[in-house]
């Protein structure tokens, strides 16, 4: 049974977090003495007041122990609330008059997609740019994870809330307490972000841009403060961003353990990390051989690695317009749009670990055809998986492809060409950002009709929450008493 008061109680707190984040962004406007300062503060205050009001309206706070089903409601509606209130800075400052555009931009931010409706971001005030980057950063490690980490009294169900949001089929706890785990992951995230800001500053980016790009990189989001994205900056900065995109697309648990144990052995023992690295190396190598239009091998190498890492980690930064690359290179990038990073990273998409499970299951299936009565476990990282999880992954893959297909159909009905529709649907579902043709790396999503923007917003939303927490709400069983 779903108790509205319980769900609202937690959502109120999420709204408060968003309100505080908007206030934080308005500080940026304060520092740069921008005209939008008042509007930004207003957006923050409205959010805070509504959050506080909902919180106050709920009188009976004794029985707030959340149950199994309510967790899904909290996660999905929490994200929905964040996306709605997140539009306020865009709408109130007047830079994005249309609600469809504002929603698209906010959802794209929180889901770390990085697809934008702006054709010119350089004219935007710094406060708004900062808010844009901040939505990326908050969504990256997860609003729920942050919520679990800083708000104490969620109880035993915190585990489930956390899991519903953390990407990937299997998640590991690094501490027996989920709150501690969420905290440690957020700290790892913070520390790595701090390091990247310092590095970017050292290599010649100014502080504001460093912070914004760090937020977008660590969250594998992809919002840039420059129209030409990372192509604006020098090769050293681009290589640094490549390295951090790569790290952000890997499992943060591995980063934490490597830091705690002072050892890199954890990476080498992880099957998913190895395959992830392998895919990047192979894809980069093929594209490197395939593209010849750049002067100098360093630039060719950088362009190919950058685009590959940007897409597989679902970041979506661009340094080159790959619409002009050879067909082979384009197909490889398109294929990477179905891969994604590692479980427990900030990356979206299907994820390497799911592919490992699918491949292992395929092997077992074939062996079973030869020996019909044989019994084989599906292993992941050497450990046998239970059948339910394998079915869950198979089903996930199926639903994922179905949703992408539906997205393609709707987009093309509303006038987008085939390649643009396919890539836009894949890119948004996978939380990547750019696609091909009309939604390519130097294009944007602003020219699409409103209906397509709503559809893509839904895809980003479903993709980020990894399907199930959203779809479960559509089952009549879920709402039964």
């Amino acid at each position, binding site marked *: 049974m779903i108790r509205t008061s319980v769900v609202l109680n937690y959502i109120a707190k999420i709204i408060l977090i968003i309100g505080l984040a908007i206030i934080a962004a308005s500080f940026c406007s304060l520092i740069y003495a921008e005209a939008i300062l008042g509007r930004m503060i207003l957006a923050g205050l409205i959010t805070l007041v509504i959050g506080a009001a909902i919180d106050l309206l709920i009188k009976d706070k004794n029985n707030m122990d959340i149950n199994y089903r309510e967790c899904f409601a909290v996660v999905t509606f929490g994200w929905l609330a964040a996306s709605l209130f997140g539009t306020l800075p865009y709408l109130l400052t007047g830079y994005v008059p249309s609600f469809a555009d504002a929603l698209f931009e906010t959802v794209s931010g929180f889901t770390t997609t990085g697809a934008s409706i702006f054709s010119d971001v350089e004219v935007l005030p710094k406060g708004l740019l900062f808010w844009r980057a901040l939505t990326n950063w908050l969504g990256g490690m997860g609003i729920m994870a942050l919520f679990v980490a800083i708000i104490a009294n969620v109880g035993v169900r915190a585990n489930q809330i956390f899991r519903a949001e953390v990407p990937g089929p299997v998640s590991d706890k690094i501490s027996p307490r989920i709150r501690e785990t969420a905290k440690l992951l957020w700290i790892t995230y913070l520390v790595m972000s701090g390091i990247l800001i310092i590095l970017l500053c050292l290599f010649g980016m100014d502080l504001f841009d460093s912070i914004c790009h760090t937020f977008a990189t660590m969250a594998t989001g992809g919002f840039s403060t420059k129209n030409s994205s990372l192509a604006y900056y020098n090769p050293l900065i681009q290589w640094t961003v490549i390295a951090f995109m790569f790290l952000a697309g890997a499992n943060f648990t591995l980063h934490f353990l490597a830091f705690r144990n002072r050892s890199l052995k954890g990476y080498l023992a992880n099957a998913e990390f190895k395959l992830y690295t392998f895919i990047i190396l192979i894809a980069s190598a093929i594209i490197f051989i395939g593209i010849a239009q750049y002067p100098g091998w360093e630039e060719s190498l950088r362009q190919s690695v950058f685009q590959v890492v940007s897409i597989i980690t679902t970041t979506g930064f661009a340094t080159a317009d790959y619409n002009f690359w050879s067909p082979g290179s384009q197909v490889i990038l398109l294929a990477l749009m179905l891969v994604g990073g590692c479980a427990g990273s900030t990356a979206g998409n299907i994820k390497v670990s799911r592919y490992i499970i699918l491949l292992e299951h395929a092997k077992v299936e074939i062996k079973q055809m030869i*020996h*019909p*009565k*044989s*019994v*084989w476990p599906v292993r992941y990282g050497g450990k*046998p998986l239970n059948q339910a999880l394998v079915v869950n992954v198979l089903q996930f893959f199926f639903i994922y492809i179905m949703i992408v297909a539906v997205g393609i159909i709707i987009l093309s009905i509303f006038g987008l060409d085939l390649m643009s529709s396919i890539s836009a649907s894949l890119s948004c579902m996978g939380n990547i950002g750019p696609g091909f043709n009309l939604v390519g790396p130097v294009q944007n999503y602003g020219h699409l009709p409103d209906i397509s923007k709503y559809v893509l917003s839904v895809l980003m939303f479903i993709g980020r929450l990894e399907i199930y927490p959203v779809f479960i709400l559509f089952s009549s069983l879920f709402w039964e008493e």
Partner: protein
Amino acid sequence: MRSIIIGAGKMGFSIAKLLSNENHDVVIIDNNEERIRLVDEILDVQVINGTGSSWRVLEEAGVKNADMVVAVTEVDELNMIACFVAKQYGVKTTIARVRDTEYIDQPHFSLAGLLGIDLIINPEMVTAYEIFNLIKNPEAVEVDYYSDKKVQFVEFVIKEDSPIANTQLKHLDTSKFVILSLVHNNQMIVPSGDDMIRSGDHVYVITKTEDISAVLKSLRISAKKIEHVTILGAGRTGYYLARLLENESKHINVKLIEKNPLRAREVSNSLSRTLVINGDGGDLDLLTAENIGHSDIYVAVTDDDKLNLLSSLIAKNLGVKKTIAKVKKEEIMPLMTQIGVDVVLSPRVLAAGYILKYIRHGDIVSVTVHENAEMIEFKAHTGSIVVNKQLQDIRFPTGSIVGAVVRNEEVYIPSGDFRILSEDQVMVFTLPESIHKIEKLFSSRIKK
């Protein structure tokens, strides 16, 4: 010597019987009254009804004066605690049956040392090792290892078409091994060069483990490489065996058939290369479909004696060259070999023998019983009769023969002019009545 045995199950019973026959004062503790009464009727031992890990019960059994405690109940933990308690009373030797490998495979510290257990025995593991040895030496009927596996003891059967049938032993090249004994028509002889090998004879041979191929060549036994092994029953024995084969013999393909789907899933989770099949070993269709006849060796180790027998026979019929079956009822062992199962093993007998081997130490390092004869390891003490003499000059009692000598970790297969030095470990194969005389040859004259 006072020995306390905890657990009057089949294994406890076997050990009690063996020890009682060796003049130990045996006390058996068990909490099953009926079982206790049964043991009391059959064996000349003292029985106590109670829990073996209780100090009261142990004191009642005379633990303070006991030399040995053997805990072989069904419960691992009880066995371990009983040994732990017994050790606190100053019992010299404690032996526990522990079957859960989680307790044994401790990488960081020895549980046995912590609890004061001198010997941990796992009957299923012992059986699995025994079968594993047979798979590694497929032509042998029995295989045993001594001195860190450097010395190998093997029993062969001479086939009807063997080229060495009706050959006198002196015509064989025995530079790399010693023929300890021939069994002809159930009659065991310690042979001389004039004796003749006949088809159907059992030949007992001792050699260096690394020279086993030379032995096969000399005895004209064709060694076929084992590639496919089928195991029926994924109980502890079957699982241990599959794991051993996975770890030790990378070229062998293993099929493991298990009836219980849950158990099949469980073992397939912890094995990697083994093909685990969920099915019934008595099901001819399954055995044919899985091409069991193609296996080199078929091992039936379910808990069901009848199924083991039946399915071994089916396998034999399908063309398997060698079948190995496990039985619980020792009485039917000879019967099964008669019908056509090649090797029949009883975990209980194996485990009891293993314990006995451990108990009877002192100067004698290890002992195994082969029907009547025994292989005993003696240490040549300074000043004893055998030291510094050539073997041909020592008068060994009839029916005994020196098989191998271990000196400074090095193994020698001696010929007549071999000279024994002091501190050598000498393995002597002998009939029981001569043991006493041999002991005299090896013990220091000054001491006596």
